[in-house]
């Protein structure tokens, strides 16, 4: 993967967080031969660094002293599509949804494990560098063949309604990323359906029944309570 980076052999990661303990921890964990870490301790410093450093991934804390994290996301999104992963101690789902709707790619609630962090960073990098989607998506026992519009579980073909297929395709194209309820509703059903969340619940429930081995313990479509859904890869 590192070979794809033609500027140098490192992925540049920008950490925007006002807590020095967190920055130190991240720099210890992320400073290896794969990543190169840049630090910013305020929203404005982060915005400046994002322009000068041109990072491959931004880790952004929502609770910054000078600027609201969501405002930082909005300003970066004005000119860049760099993956942004939000780090927040806030337990409030509203903040996560606002960050995702503002353009953040993913979020991690503090405290988080290193494994989780690495997985999210890698997934974000993978998404951002994959210009042309693979024609066939495969994860665990699930396989989606886009050219043939064919979905199969454990090699068995599964019949999906057009809406279910669109829903699954949307999740697959954003694999690993949380899609908020409103993002999904807007893209599949249109803006008029934003206030009709039950449509989404019913379709997710039906989709799970068809592709999950045990719908009560979903392996593919993971619910992020109060936020949205994420397609997990294996």
């Amino acid at each position: 993967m590192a070979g794809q980076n033609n500027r140098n052999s490192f992925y540049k990661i920008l950490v925007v967080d006002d807590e020095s303990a967190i920055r130190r921890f991240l720099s210890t964990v992320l400073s290896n031969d794969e990543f190169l870490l840049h630090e910013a301790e305020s929203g404005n410093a982060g915005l400046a660094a994002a322009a000068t450093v041109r990072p491959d991934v931004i880790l952004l804390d929502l609770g910054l002293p000078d600027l609201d994290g969501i405002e930082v996301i909005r300003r970066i999104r004005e000119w860049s599509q760099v993956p942004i992963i939000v780090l927040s101690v806030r337990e409030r789902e509203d903040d996560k949804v606002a960050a995702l709707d503002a353009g953040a790619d993913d979020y991690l609630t503090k405290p988080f494990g290193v494994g989780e962090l690495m997985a999210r960073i890698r997934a974000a990098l993978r998404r951002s560098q994959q210009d042309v989607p693979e024609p066939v998506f495969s994860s665990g026992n699930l396989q989606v063949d886009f050219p043939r519009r064919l979905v199969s579980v454990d090699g068995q073909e599964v019949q999906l309604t057009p809406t279910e297929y669109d829903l699954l395709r949307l999740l697959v194209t954003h694999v690993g990323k949380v899609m908020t309820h409103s993002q999904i509703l807007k893209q599949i059903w249109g803006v008029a359906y934003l206030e009709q969340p039950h449509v989404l619940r019913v379709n997710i429930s039906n989709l799970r029944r068809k592709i999950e081995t045990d719908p009560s313990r979903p392996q593919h479509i993971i619910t992020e309570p109060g936020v949205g859904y994420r397609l997990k890869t294996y």
Partner: protein
Amino acid sequence: MNTDSKRDSSGAPERLLACISGGPNSEKLIRATRRLADQLGAQWYTVYVETPSNSKYTRENSERVWHFLRLAESLGAQVTSVAAMSIVDAIKECASRHGITRVVVGKPGRPRLKDRLFLPIHEKIIRGIGKVDVLVVSLELASDNGRKVRSTAMGKSGLISYLFCFLLIAMVTIACEFLRPVLDPTNMVMFYLLAVVIVSVRLGRKQAVVTSVLGVMAFDFFFVPPRLTFEVVDTQYLITFAALFVVGMVISSLVARAGERAEVLRMREVQTASLYYLSRDLTAAVDIQSVLNAVVRNVEEALKARLTILFPTGPGLDVVVASKGLKLDQYDCSVAEWAFQNGSMAGRGTDIYPASGLFFLPLRTPVGLLGVMGIGFEHEDDYQSQDYRRLADAFAAQASMAMERVNLAKQAEQAKIIQARENLERALLNSISHDLRTPLSSITGVLTSLKADDLNLPDQSRRELLDTACGEAERLNRFVANLLDMTRIESGAVRLKLEPGDVQDLVGCAIGALEPIAKNRQIVVRIEPMLPLVAMDMVLMTQVMVNLIENSLKYSPADSPVEIGAGLGQDCLEIEVCDYGKGIAETELQRVFDKFYRLPVPEGAGGTGLGLSICKGIVEAHNGSIKAENRPSGGLRMVVRLPLDGTGEF
């Protein structure tokens, strides 16, 4: 007002007492005393002694007295009015009660006839008062307008009443004429006396005097031989005339005075009764509002007045209660504020802002001013009435005391509540600090032992230590999350974000969140197919399910499964979490939802004691219910019921 009194040579503060008679010169006496008090820097008092002999001019006199007392009050005196038999004794008693050092009395500039015959009153006071100094102020005798005032004395005036006297005497005379054959002339006098008594009772003193004169004349003219002339042959009859006249006068005087006293007593009786009713109502009042209502009701009845009470709120005063239809304008409010700030009465009937629509008096308690009471009397005269003023004062004092009592009771109650809350908070703090410290100690222990260079731990031990630390950190995180949830639920800061929720999704999320602890356990899920979506806050309900499942995992043997079920109940969605543990004693089933309640589990499962109370809070916020019950086959069953009707809105 001058309240800081200087001390005289003996060290006791100077206190002056002005004794006023209610006569026209009283004002001069008051002003003289005030000047003296100012010079001495002394406190001063003004007293009016009401005796049977000077109460005969009740109304006009008392109005003048009242006026003088108000004047004295406005000049800074403390005023009292006492009723007694003897002026000297009353003043003596008053002086000793207030610790008076000097008594100030007036002396007429020119001695009157009465003063020549009897010992003048100031002389009596000087002789009777004992060791207190008496200052005698010489008073010019002002023009005797007092007497003029008196001359319009009480009783029915006018010709009609005198005509009645005349008719009565005529009737008595006619009756006596018929009785003449059987009655001795001297006994006829009794009938005339009867007429005098009737007139004095019914009409008043003057008419009685006229009646006795008429009676004497009629008796002389018609019955004393020689009849039909005013001549008297038998000089003995002169004694009869004199007796008839004097007895008539005396009786009329006595009857009139008795009537006046009866009137005064009746007034007092009414006042006492109204005060009694007020105090009875106030005793029954338990809060400020009922005290206020009782005061308004009683004052309205007793004084036939409209009433308002104002309490201080922030910068100004606000009306807290008022009689129907009583409105205060800007001016009244500023008068009320003056009364409150100066702690003295103001408004109509006083010398301060008399243009105000109401008479204001402060509500005073031993600790300070509570507020102001404003009274609007029915008649203009009532503002000047000493009796009404006295009664209003008494009402205000009673009301203040009752409010103070209610306030004190409330404070005591609040102190008790605060005490209880403090105890609870201390218990919570102890519990919380214990729950925070336990995992922290483990983590610190692990970290320090890993850091220590001289401890050559084998890799296996290091790994175990790290696992412990991670587990404890996880536990700490859950505890803090629970604590935050609890605080939010308790402070009412939780606003449910209701959305149509899928039970299967809910259960899935909960199991997913418990993956680290649940991975080695068997969790059986049985969800009825085609369950409707239910309105719920997914995040909070996930928290509920996580807590319930975590408890079940914790309090049941490691090799036993945990069963989760969902189905339709009576108008509700039922979600149950069952385990194969020991269950809970029946008596404890309710208490498990109490904050910081922990089951006595031997292996010390290390719960926070918050999980179930959070569940209860969240479920009840959804208008649902949560219940713990023992299963017949052993183990515990927790049932959450969520109302279905919430789905209607989707």
